[in-house]
């Protein structure tokens, strides 16, 4: 066990835990944001640099501070380590810089992006980003490529987190998905535009932190905050069959894995569950999913809704004692 102090909060964690995991154990408020790290996938993390933290004291044995900010997702804790995240102004400034870098080439097309509302980059930009960009050049764009009938690749939005690449490496067999070119021209692609044809390939949609990989069967059907996530399951011979279905009325618009508060799925689901089972009779619906109150998705959440008590009076006042049909009638001027 190692004792580590993050933002003046002490916690004891097993050896080999990363700083990020330790911070998540304390709570989501302390945990640094992570765009590329995904605890369910090995060797992810270290690329986006948003989770950098300052190590003020390396360990009890070697109390020297680390010279540079370290990626918390790839740095394991040592006994007696002292870490600063939210309480370090330098780290906050550095993180703002990283967010700016991530956004200079990312199209700000949230109003037409399917990921809006559940986008990690959107949340990150909201918290750490500046109100205006200092970048005044053309954004990098890519030729559209078709990667199959279920998954839409929108490369312009990609922030090269490598999560989908690692998913294809680790979940699916016979990897056909990787990164081409280098520098800011680097793009994720199925090799020679070969479609991803695999039972678990749909998971790249769930792991994508931005709207680069989206579900073609859900594309443009609804904004996510108009849909209601419900826990559901079915007997599936390929996966566990535990999913979240996103409903509008009695219609299932979309099926995804069950994401926790850090945006990570509890278990990977197969393409049959994700793309083909879209009718209510396919699923045993367990009940509504808990959604973070701060999330825009909960704006439409039925569970927390209370009947407003003040509205009636105000309506009365506005309507000047008239009933609604009367207010709306033409004669009312």
């Amino acid at each position: 066990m190692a004792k580590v102090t993050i933002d003046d909060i002490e916690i004891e964690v097993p050896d080999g835990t990363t700083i990020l995991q330790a911070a998540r154990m304390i709570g989501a408020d302390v945990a640094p944001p992570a765009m590329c790290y995904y605890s369910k996938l090995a060797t992810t993390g270290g690329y986006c640099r948003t989770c950098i933290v300052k190590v003020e004291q390396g360990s009890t044995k070697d109390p020297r501070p680390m010279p540079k900010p370290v990626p918390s997702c790839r740095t394991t804790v040592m006994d007696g380590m002292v870490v600063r995240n939210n309480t370090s102004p330098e780290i906050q400034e550095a993180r703002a810089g990283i967010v700016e870098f991530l956004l200079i080439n990312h199209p700000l097309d949230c109003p037409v992006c399917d990921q809006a509302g559940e986008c990690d980059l959107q949340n990150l930009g909201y918290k750490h980003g500046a109100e205006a960009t200092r970048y005044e050049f053309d954004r990098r764009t890519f030729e559209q490529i078709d990667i199959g009938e279920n998954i839409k690749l929108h490369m312009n939005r990609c922030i090269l987190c490598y999560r989908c690449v690692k998913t294809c490496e680790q979940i699916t067999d016979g990897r056909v998905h990787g990164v081409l070119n280098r520098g800011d021209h680097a793009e994720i692609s199925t090799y020679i535009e070969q479609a991803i044809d695999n039972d678990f390939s749909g998971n790249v949609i769930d792991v994508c932190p931005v709207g680069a990989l989206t579900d073609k069967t859900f594309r443009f059907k609804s904004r996510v905050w108009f849909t209601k996530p419900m826990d559901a399951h079915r007997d599936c011979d390929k996966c566990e069959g535990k999913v979240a279905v996103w409903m509008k009325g009695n219609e299932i618009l979309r099926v995804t894995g069950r994401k926790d508060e850090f945006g990570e799925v509890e278990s990977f689901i197969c393409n049959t569950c994700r793309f083909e089972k879209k009718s209510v009779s396919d699923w045993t619906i367990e009940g509504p999913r808990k959604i973070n109150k701060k999330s825009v998705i909960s704006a439409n959440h039925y569970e927390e809704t209370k009947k407003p008590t003040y509205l009636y009076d105000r309506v009365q006042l506005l309507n000047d004692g008239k009933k609604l049909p009367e207010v709306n009638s033409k004669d009312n001027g």
Partner: protein
Amino acid sequence: MERKLLLANAHIKGIETLEVYRQHGGYKSVEKALKTMAPEAILEEVKTSGLRGRGGAGFPTGMKWSFIAKPEGVPRHLVCNADESEPGTFKDRYLMEKLPHLLIEGMIVSSFALGANLSYIYIRGEYFYVARIMEKAIAEAYKAGLLGKNILGTGFDLDLYVQIGAGAYICGEETALIESLEGKRGNPRIKPPFPAIAGLWGRPTVVNNVETLAAVVPIVNDGGAEYAKIGIGKSTGTKLISASGHINKPGVYEIEMGITVEDFIYSEAFCGGIRNGKKLKAVVAGGSSVPILPTELILKTAAGEPRLMSYESLSDGGFATGTMMGSGGFIAMDEDTSIVKNLYTFSRFYHHESCGQCSPCREGTGWMEKILHKILDGRGTLKDVDLLWDIQSKIEGKTICPLGEAAAWPVAAAIRHFRKEFEEYVTNPQNIKDVKHFYRLNQLTEA
């Protein structure tokens, strides 16, 4: 003072063949090391010699070797980093071209010291002809029983292979080099684990520069203590300097560390002064990634002492008034040089060579290049200069590998020391393409 240790025989005709090389005392160190010394003894000699890595970082070689993990039954590897791509550096090419057997000799001894039976020379793709020279020399060494099974009857086996890269600067970073050598995309790995623990194919690996491995030969021949006598302070031995730019005699020079920079630039034995009788404006002392210094700071330290060609003296004063030894790519610029244009060239290079793995480098290098292009195009504003400074500070220290720093330092140093020139570019853009412009710039720099 000129002191030839590595390049002493470089001028001899036919030295690239094994026969001539052996006539001039070649492979003596292999016989000495394999027949009379234990691997630990060689390591001790290298430690005593104070040899520091010649690739750029200047990390003590003996210490690097001592970090290598030695688990039972796991093979270890030595990899020679011949992916010399730093702009302004061309010493390794010269060394391999003239003295391929010196590198092979150094690699045999070093592999023996590290217990490696399979070693690689990773040569940059553009050095295709050099790879041919190396392969020819390796074939000769195999024939003479200096490589392969049971070298010189000592029971030590070593196979040596040449691998040609595909021309990416990033593959000079040791973990990217290892990835590339494994046949993967040349992306730097996230450290830890360091290559000394898990390197090539997950096995303990040491990656050394060409010049470093060649320097092991005189260390074994004459002893580490003898080698440590050469040089000054912790900068022991000789260093190959690739001198280029506006000097009378560009080329590769072997110097004893500790000569003054002034001596190196103006003496007839080395650069021979600035060409066409012009004045020196600035020097990039160790390859394109180290901070540029104006004349007054490169010749004298901030304290007023003469600056020496050594690791300590060049970095005296930190980045505020100093620079780095780097890989020894010495680029001198005369008074007609535009620092902004030069910086744009460097930035374009780093933008082109960024691997695209981590965000600050991927996005930041391109951004800096675009701003510099805008300034050179006469559309820059004073805000852009501040923005450049801000971007570089947000890249530095936040990337996976040192390429981020390599891209940020030149920008920082150019703005730090030549801010007036940037301001001149943005306030009087109409003068940029005017030749007389440079005279105005020089007056600014001197004032």
